[in-house]
Structure formats: C-alpha cells, structure tokens
C-alpha cells in the first residue's frame, strides 16, 4: 500500500449513508487497514451528489474525489444511484476540458456488507492519486465562496 508510506494527499470521499458509508464502517469494524488520505463526507444518497461538489473539491485543493453508493437496483431510494451514474459519467468526460485529469475522479458501488471491497477500492484509488501526484491548485480557497451563500438565505434565521 504505497499510500501509507508517503506524505498524505487530499482525497475526499462522498458516500451514501445506506451502502458505502456502512461498507466503510464495516471495514473499520473488521480492522481492515487502509491508506489514511481519504476524508469521508456522508450523503443521504448518491442521488444527492451534485457534480459541482466534485468540481469545488478539485478546484479547491483536493487531489482526488471518490463517490460511492449502492449497487444499481439496490438503492434505498429506488433510483438515486441511477441519477448519480448519469450525472457523474457526464462529469467525468468533461473533467479534461476543465484541465483536470479524469483519473482524479471516480465513482463506485460498494454495499454495506462489502468491507473487503471498500478496503480495496480505497487502496486502489489512493494508489492511483499518489501516482498522479498532487493536483495543481486552480483556485485559492479564499476565493471560493460557498455556492449560494449570498442572497441564498432561503430561511432567514
């Protein structure tokens, strides 16, 4: 596991609460050792995965982004993962246009019971990002406002 021996890179994982997040939990419970680069953000469903989250992450300093959800036909919300697949596949093909190596982004399906699969997915993806090396910084974090922060206070507190 090359990812473990060298300096960490910045990898963000967006995981569906019902499948892959549970899979990552199971991998932890089973004490499957993994590279530590990935930071996981929990989503209710990969259908919630706005392609813009991936872009924001990659532009803002992440070296790799992984999205993982339920296997096709296994979605807790019946079809969220199909929406995700369509949107993310389109995103993947447009990444080079934006100057981002498409291998820095991947989407996978891992179920809550597939602890060993999660370990291999994380390891393989981390290894791949380490081969690509750190991503060029395209935006400074300070320049990157939250998407609709201004004028988007839908519910005044």
């Amino acid at each position, binding site marked *: 596991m090359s990812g*473990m021996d060298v300096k*960490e890179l*910045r990898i*963000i994982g967006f995981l569906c*609460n*019902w499948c892959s*997040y*549970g899979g*990552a*939990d199971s*991998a*932890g*419970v089973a*004490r*499957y*050792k*993994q*590279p*530590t680069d990935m*930071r*996981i*953000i*929990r*989503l*209710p*469903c990969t*259908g*919630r*995965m*706005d392609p*813009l*989250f991936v872009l*924001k*992450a990659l532009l*803002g*300093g*992440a070296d790799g982004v992984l999205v993982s959800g*339920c296997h096709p*036909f*296994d*979605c*807790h*919300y*019946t*079809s*969220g993962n199909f*929406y995700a697949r369509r*949107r993310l596949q389109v995103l993947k093909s447009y990444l080079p246009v934006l100057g981002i190596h498409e291998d820095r982004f991947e989407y996978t399906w891992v*179920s809550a*019971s*597939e602890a060993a699969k999660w370990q291999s997915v994380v390891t393989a993806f981390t290894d791949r990002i380490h081969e690509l090396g750190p991503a060029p910084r395209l935006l400074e*974090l300070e320049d*990157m406002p*939250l*998407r*609709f922060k201004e004028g*988007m206070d*839908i*519910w005044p*507190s």
Partner: protein
Amino acid sequence: MKIGVFVCLCGSNIAATVDTERVAEIARSYPDVVFSKAEMYACSEPGQEAIREAIVEKGLEGVVVASCSPRMHETTFRRAVERAGVNRYMFEMANIREHVSWVSLDREVNTRKAAELVRAAVEKLRLNRHLTPSKFEINKRVMVIGGGVAGIQAALDMADGGLKVVMVEREPSVGGKMAKLDKTFPTVDCSACILGPKMVDLAQHPNITLHAFSEIEDVAGYVGNFAVTVRRKTPYVDWERCTGCGLCMEKCPSRKSPDVFNEGLKPTTSINIPFPQAIPKKATINPDTCIMLTKGKCGSCAKICPTGAVDFEKQDELVTEEVGAIIAATGYDVFDHAKYEEYGGGRIPDVITSMQYERMLNASGPTSGHVKRPSDGKEPKKVVFVQCVGSRDPSKGRPYCSGFCCMYTAKQAILTKDHIPDAEVYTFYIDVRAPSKMYEEFYNRARDEYGVRYLRGRPSRIYQDGDKVVVRSVDTLLQAQVEVEADLVVLAVGGEHSRGASELAEKLRISADQNGFFMESHPKLRPVETNTAGVFLAGACQGLKDIPTAVAQGTAAAAKALVLLSRDMLEADPQVARVNQSRCIGCAKCVGVCPFQAIRMGKDRWGNPKAEVVETMCQGCGVCNVACMDKAIQLDHFTDDQILAEVNALCREWT
C-alpha cells in the same frame, strides 16, 4: 453560535491510535467553538451527562461529538442534546473510530485526520438550523410476505395483538418448508402435527386475510402508509366455490405434472391440491401440463366438479392492500445439487437430496413412508449421508454454513434406523455443528444409541457401479482413502436465498448481503429490522435458521410491528426537501425526478406554478436538490451550503 466539541476515547478503541486530548485542543481553535473536552465514553450515562452540563453551563447552541459512526449513535446523542434543551438537529458527529482509529495505527496521522473531520463537522453545524418533525397518521394493518412457519407465527402474534394482518403466499398453500418435513429435530416430533394447528388458526383467525398463490407486484408509500399491489395468480379455479373435495384430481387424465410438494419424486395430476392438510385447501391447475389449456380439449375436471368451480378463462387479478408495516418472511430455497458434477450432478437415480428423503420418510409422502430406492423400489440396506452439499464451499459460491444440515442429517439417520433396523448408516461430515439446546445430545444419540457411523471427510466422487452407488472419500482422521458401496446416497443439501429475493428486496427498498439474504439493520442489536422504516424480517430470508429460531424471529418481528403500530401518529423525519418559492421558476424538473411522488405543482398567490413538497412523503434523498437548476429546492440538513462547508473544511491546507 456557541459550539461544544466532545472527543470520545471509546476506552482504548479510539484513544489507542488517536491523541484525543490533542484533537480536543485543536478543536478549540475552530470558529464558534467555545468549549471542547475529551470524554472516556461519550455515549455512556456520565458522558451524556457531561454533554448536558456543558450545554447548560456554557450556553451551547450546537454540539459536535467525535466518536463512532453516526449509524451507531447519532440517535443517542440527538436525544441527549434535546434533553438539555437544544434542538436535536443542532448536532453533528465526526466518525473517528470506524473511519480513523480502526483503519490505521499511525497515531500522528490519525490525530490530524480526526481533527480535520471534527473541523468539517463544526463547519457544517454552523449552517444547521432547527428542525421540528411533523406528525402523520398510520394505518394499523400489517402485511406478512411468506407463509412459512416464521410468517405464520408473526401473523398469529400480530392478529392476537389486535392488528389486521394480510398474508401473501407465493405457493397455493401456506406451510413453507416445514410442511414438507416428516419429523423435526431434536425431539423427533411430527412436523405436520405441530404446524397443522397453526395453519388452521391462521385460516380461521378473524383478523387475518390470506392471499395464497399470490405475489408482490409493487410496493409504494412509506412507513405507516404502504400501498402494496398483490398479483393473485390465476389457479383456473374459482376458489370461492372450490370445496377441496378432490374429485377433480381423481378424474384428471394428465398425470405428468411435476409434484413440487413431493420434490419431484412422483408426478402428479394437472389439477391438484398440493397436500391433504393444505391451507387453503383449494385446487390449482398447472397451465403447462393441463390438456385443456395446452390443446383445448378435455375439461374432465370442469365436468366432474360438483360446484362448477373450474374456470379455464380465469385471469390474474391485481389487488391493492394498504398497510402500515410489512414483514418479509420469504424463507429460503434448497440448494440445487446439480452443481456438484462430482456427485453425479443429479443424474444418478439413487443419489437424492435430504428434502426428497424427508418426503419419502413421510407417511403422506409419495412412498407412504417406506424407504425405497428410486431406481428399483427396493429397500436400501446401506444408506450414506453426505453433509455440506452447498454449504461451506466457496467453489460453489456457498461459503457459509447452512446451520441446520448437521442436525437434520442426524435426525434422518436415526429415522433410517427406525424404518430399517438392520440398515448400515454412514455420514460423511467436515465438522458436526450442534450448538443449540439438546442438539449435541441428539447427535451423540445418533452415534452411540443408533450406531450411525460418522466419517470425517468431504467425498471427492460419487458414481454408479452396477446397482450400487460408490462414495469415495478420504477419512481425514485415519488419513486413508475410503470407499463405501451404498444402496442409497442422501445429499444433505444446504440452503440458499429464495428465488426472487433480490426482486422483492428492490420493491421493498431493503438490501441483501453478499449471499443474497436480506440485511438486518444491525446484526446484534436490530436483528429483525431493516434500514427501511416499517419493513421487518422474519425467518430464513434474513439468514438460514432452524425452526425454533425462525419462530422466535417471527415473534420478534411481530413485536416490533406491534410497537410501531401501537402509536396513532408517527413523527416524520424533518430532513426533507424545502422549496424557496421566490426562486422556483415552476419548471417541474423536481416533480419528474422524485422517486416518491412527494413533489407536486402548486400555485403562488399570483397564480404562477410553484413546486410544493409533501413533507410526509419526502424521504430525503435529495435527487430534486441536484435536479433544480435554480437551487430553489434544498434538502434540509444536507443543503448545498452545508455540504460545501464540509468540502471547504477538508480542502484546507494543513501543516
């Protein structure tokens, strides 16, 4: 906002590889964090008390707990902050155990990673808002899918508890696998004698409606308000009129239908009642073999039927049942031994499965309870049982132990000796597993009292030699090759997930494990619940189990359903989508993508079309949030801003 951070040591689970004190210290530098503390066990009574005290003393408005997975304890902590007067949604969790301390041993790296995850949680919490659940009414009926012993037990318990129960069974009769058995271990009591009365109770219970010979077509709705479409397959007989007299079976000239109930040991008539104690006791026509339905002539059954029940024109019917909860009790299927080419692949007539043998032992079975070789009808004098056929064998895609084969083999070996006292009985085994009450004693009886010979080894080959069947194996205790010339070989086949299980899982929106069995919510603490609210599991559909365990789980699932439906109102999860009407342009894209029909088009006061979310129907997946080009619809608790706040926090440079 004043935020408090609690970093859990979880004994040594986290503290061994994460410097929790340091994480708590770093957390103090995060925006809005006014208090932070490392806690031995945050989920324990003193841990929750510490959170409550801090909320009261420091006037906290939001809490972050860095500990285990939110799938484990989010509810616990939400309740704790709520008890201290803070809205339960002003709480966030950072998973520093499953995702940090347990996957790496590098303390320095882990500590930094934990601190980063805490920062992401803090940044998200800053954008959280108070959410209040709304309430909705629930339907006090329950559906049980599957009429095996687990489903029957669940249905009876709930019906006795006052709930209306709808049972859906795929086969023409309830009873499942247990109805086929002759005797049950370890008491060797008659299976039909203990199941039969329960089946009758089921049929006669005023609170139970039975749809036999029916399948689930579609499941809509959500906990408390499911609408299940049931396809009542046509038996080509009007069951309202059929009295189960059986005259049609006597007259039917087509006698080549496979007898499913008797495991194909003997053909049956095209119109038949599966077995004498069937519930409901109604005739069904097999359309593949019926001469009238295939060739358009015959109709003897229609002529003889005293009530005129036979109706060749009858079609499938669809009925919709509205229920508040669903119990899946779809059981298992017997492993198909044709996959074992080395055991003859089902082509040697005197190599049969344990279920076929069970039917043969049964007095109401095809041989009237006499043990006969299928090839020549003679009584076998040497019977060999081969265990673990389709169990504990990764090469056949069945890596798991089926759990009941050791015991039913011991039972069948004993019964063999009862039927043929001078028979020699051998059992090939890998390990004998007998962990329940009186099981080990039963296995010992088979060996010591009945003289069943146990040989340790998985046979490598079974082949026909003249009128004998030769079982070749290694005896791993003697370290020697052995060959047994048998008259009859019984393969102790394991179980596998029921056919159609994955389609049903998809309809119920529950998941299955790697072996195709339905997944429980938590293997230890929520064994009969699923991750879909209002859907429970009973019996072997969740994993193979013997009769006592299946019955226990049926009762457990019934209790869970009774708990759920003992309330008149349920709280709806407030993590739902919300529309900002001033931004909505009325394009209706969200309406199209919503899998739950939870969004409809309304009008604002000027008559412009605007999307509206039906809160009780929204399940909070967020598909609409992404589809909306103007971001007018946002999923509460997972808004764009909240997720991007986490992204920003994690993109931050660390030194």
